[in-house]
């Protein structure tokens, strides 16, 4: 593997720290060197990294980490807090004008994903019962207008266009005018991609800005951008007084250092993150979650949110009891699997789990939804008795199950073995999560607290 994720990298560093009782200043320095490297490899701008490391070092010393009982936890905590702050502190929402329509102007380099994002944002606003109008201001890229029209058609949002022969300034002006006349409360103006050093085009977008006086100016940044992200953000900020940033293509395997840099350099909050190709895959950006994800604590908050939206609390409570008392059967297993699948694509869920990034990067580990379907088929081919007492399943039953599910006996064997292992693991896991038991990670504890307060409470068998 050429790269380990930033997450696993930091885990390695602090794993070393965690293993020791006491820390010397050299240990902290060594850890900081690793953090620095990891951040640089994640494309965080080197100036930002420098400041960051200096800050963390200073705080680490100030808090007498060296004498603390669990110094590693203190260091992680400081790094976590500083990361969160670097990415914007608390969550920022989309602006809303007192005098509708609220005008939103998009800006960014070519290929950052402005047009797609404009469509996604309109979709989001529409689901919130707003009446957005899309304005096709990219007259340069071939078929950019057509792209926006198709997106608008998909989500049922009107698109204002004057073709590609009218100046974008005029298009923007008349677009806003039409929104006023037709009572749209949001106007989203798509613009052509431009390099921050292209003076003519930068002047043009400035003119658009002056003509429509937007309430929100969003810079669309590709999450894969390297060191240049800082220069791009700075130039656009100087010209347009940005009010926010949107990160796109965050569902890739990029480590997203751009997210860290952009806010630090411009002071603009990151308002949204685009996490997939479908029109509804746009999420509010949560700096705290991103920070703990980077630190290897997993994005537990997002996971909990997803789980709560999809999992029946009573069923979950019952499941938890079964798991603790090891009454868990193959039938429960099947149900559990269905519940988990409802939360979304498995690889995305795994991304949010602490430590799972490491697993994902292993060469022979592949998230395969088909495999899950096969597993389901196998379990469904069992009789109820077999599901309750897997010990019953002898060779001839295995053969029947394999034939019934279109798999092989080897597949059935593997599943049964996995199920046994899982049961064993669950016992350990529930011991870990039980009262008085201390989870190894802060995220676990937070999860437990969260769940304790919620009705029923639930735990995950993975």
């Amino acid at each position: 593997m050429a790269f380990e994720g930033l997450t696993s990298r930091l885990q390695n560093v602090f794993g070393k720290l965690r293993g020791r009782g006491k820390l010397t200043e050299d240990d902290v320095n060594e850890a900081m060197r690793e953090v620095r490297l990891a951040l640089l490899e994640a494309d965080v701008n080197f100036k930002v990294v420098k400041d960051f490391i200096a800050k963390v070092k200073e705080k680490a010393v100030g808090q007498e980490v060296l004498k603390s009982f669990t110094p590693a936890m203190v260091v992680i905590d400081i790094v976590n807090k500083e990361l969160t702050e670097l990415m914007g502190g608390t969550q920022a929402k989309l602006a809303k004008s007192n005098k509708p329509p609220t005008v939103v102007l998009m800006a960014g380099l070519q290929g950052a994903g402005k047009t797609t994002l404009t469509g996604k944002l309109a979709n989001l606003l529409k689901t919130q019962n707003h009446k957005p109008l899309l304005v096709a201001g990219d007259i340069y890229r071939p078929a950019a207008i057509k792209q926006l029209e198709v997106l608008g058609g998909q989500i049922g949002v009107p698109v204002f266009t004057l073709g590609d022969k009218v100046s974008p300034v005029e298009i923007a002006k008349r677009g806003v005018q039409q929104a006023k006349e037709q009572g749209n409360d949001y106007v989203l103006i798509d613009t052509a991609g431009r390099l921050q050093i292209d003076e003519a085009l930068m002047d043009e977008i400035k003119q658009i800005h002056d003509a429509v006086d937007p309430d929100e100016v969003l810079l669309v940044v590709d999450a894969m951008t390297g060191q240049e992200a800082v220069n791009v953000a700075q130039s656009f900020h100087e010209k347009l007084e940005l009010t926010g940033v949107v990160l796109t293509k965050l569902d890739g395997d990029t480590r997203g250092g751009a997210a860290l840099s952009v806010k630090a350099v411009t002071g603009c909050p990151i308002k949204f993150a685009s996490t997939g190709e479908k029109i509804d895959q746009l999420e509010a950006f949560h700096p705290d979650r991103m920070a703990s994800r980077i630190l290897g604590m997993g994005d537990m908050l997002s996971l909990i949110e997803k789980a709560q939206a999809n999992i029946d609390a009573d069923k979950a409570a019952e499941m938890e009891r079964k798991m603790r008392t090891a009454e868990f059967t193959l039938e429960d297993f099947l149900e559990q699997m269905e519940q988990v699948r409802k939360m979304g694509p498995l690889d995305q869920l795994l991304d949010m789990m602490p430590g799972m990034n490491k697993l994902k990067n292993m060469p022979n580990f592949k998230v395969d939804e088909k495999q899950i379907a096969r597993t389901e088929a196998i379990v469904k081919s069992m009789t109820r008795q077999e599901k309750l007492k897997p010990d019953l399943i002898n060779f001839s039953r295995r053969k029947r199950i394999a034939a019934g599910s279109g798999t092989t006996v080897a597949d059935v064997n593997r599943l049964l073995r996995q199920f046994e292992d899982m049961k064993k693991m669950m016992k350990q896991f529930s011991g870990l999560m039980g009262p008085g038991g201390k989870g190894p990670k802060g995220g676990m504890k937070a999860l437990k607290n969260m769940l304790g307060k919620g009705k029923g409470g639930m735990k995950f068998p993975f």
Partner: protein
Amino acid sequence: MSFFKRLRESIASKTEAVTSKFKEGLAKTRSVLTDRVAELFTRRKKIDDAFFEELEEILIGADVGVNTVMELIENLRAEVKKRKIEDPSELQPILSEKLMDLLRGSGEDASLKMDPDGITVILFVGVNGVGKTTTIGKLAWRFKQQGKSVLLAAGDTFRAGAIEQLEVWGQRAGVDVIRQEAGSDPAAVMFDAVREAKKRGVDVLLCDTAGRLQNKVNLMEELAKIHRVIQREIPGAPHETLLVLDAATGQNALQQAKLFGEKSGVTGLVLTKLDGTAKGGIVIAIRHEMALPVKFVGLGEKMDDLQEFDPEQFVHALFAGLAGNGENEGE
């Protein structure tokens, strides 16, 4: 430094126009990377840890990959020790030469592999928004200028407006586009396109594909399928599979090269938007860490701004300033 003289002579034999394209397109990279290195070497009077750290930052700041930079710095430290160098100015030519070695690689042929007798099929792959369709448009124009007959395959059936975008480029270049409806199976489009190309007996078939992130297993499998379909119809095709990379991409570019390489057998790279960014640096990392040649670079927005990558031109455009200094020191 006879090395620089040789470089200059070999470049002098090339046309002025191409040289100036490279020089203009890389002006920003030069000012960020080369000028800052030169400034560092004149300002610092001693070679110490602070010196190396600053050098490291300049190189990383230009997106030369972290691994590559670390290796480079290690090498330099070793040289300093071995040769007992104290003055930074003595180290400068060593750095220049090492950087250029990295860029030149093993000196493989950067030109496209063409089938002189039959149809040459070139498949374009890459993540979203890197400029695949635009590159195909420019390349179609280029082949057309060379008097070749060209056909385009609209394989991006996913993104809204992608087919229309390719058609506009087709009109500009005067080239036909084979297409199906949006949302159809891209492998089927390729099948049609290859059949049509055979029927018409064209020289070059350029195949567009939808942008995809390299960690999406299913989409990458789709790419492998497209590859198979083309191969089945024309043995030996695609003759080139070009990974299109946005020059502003950071370290993720290496990951892209790796994963696309595994799934679609990438044979070369196209580096786009190199003019606007300070980041020629990633070229150094890619050449060092991947065994893939850079075939084309996008140095501007005009039709003819897609240039064949010429390592010597690239080196010259980047390090002209450094070379001059190095020679003065030597004399």
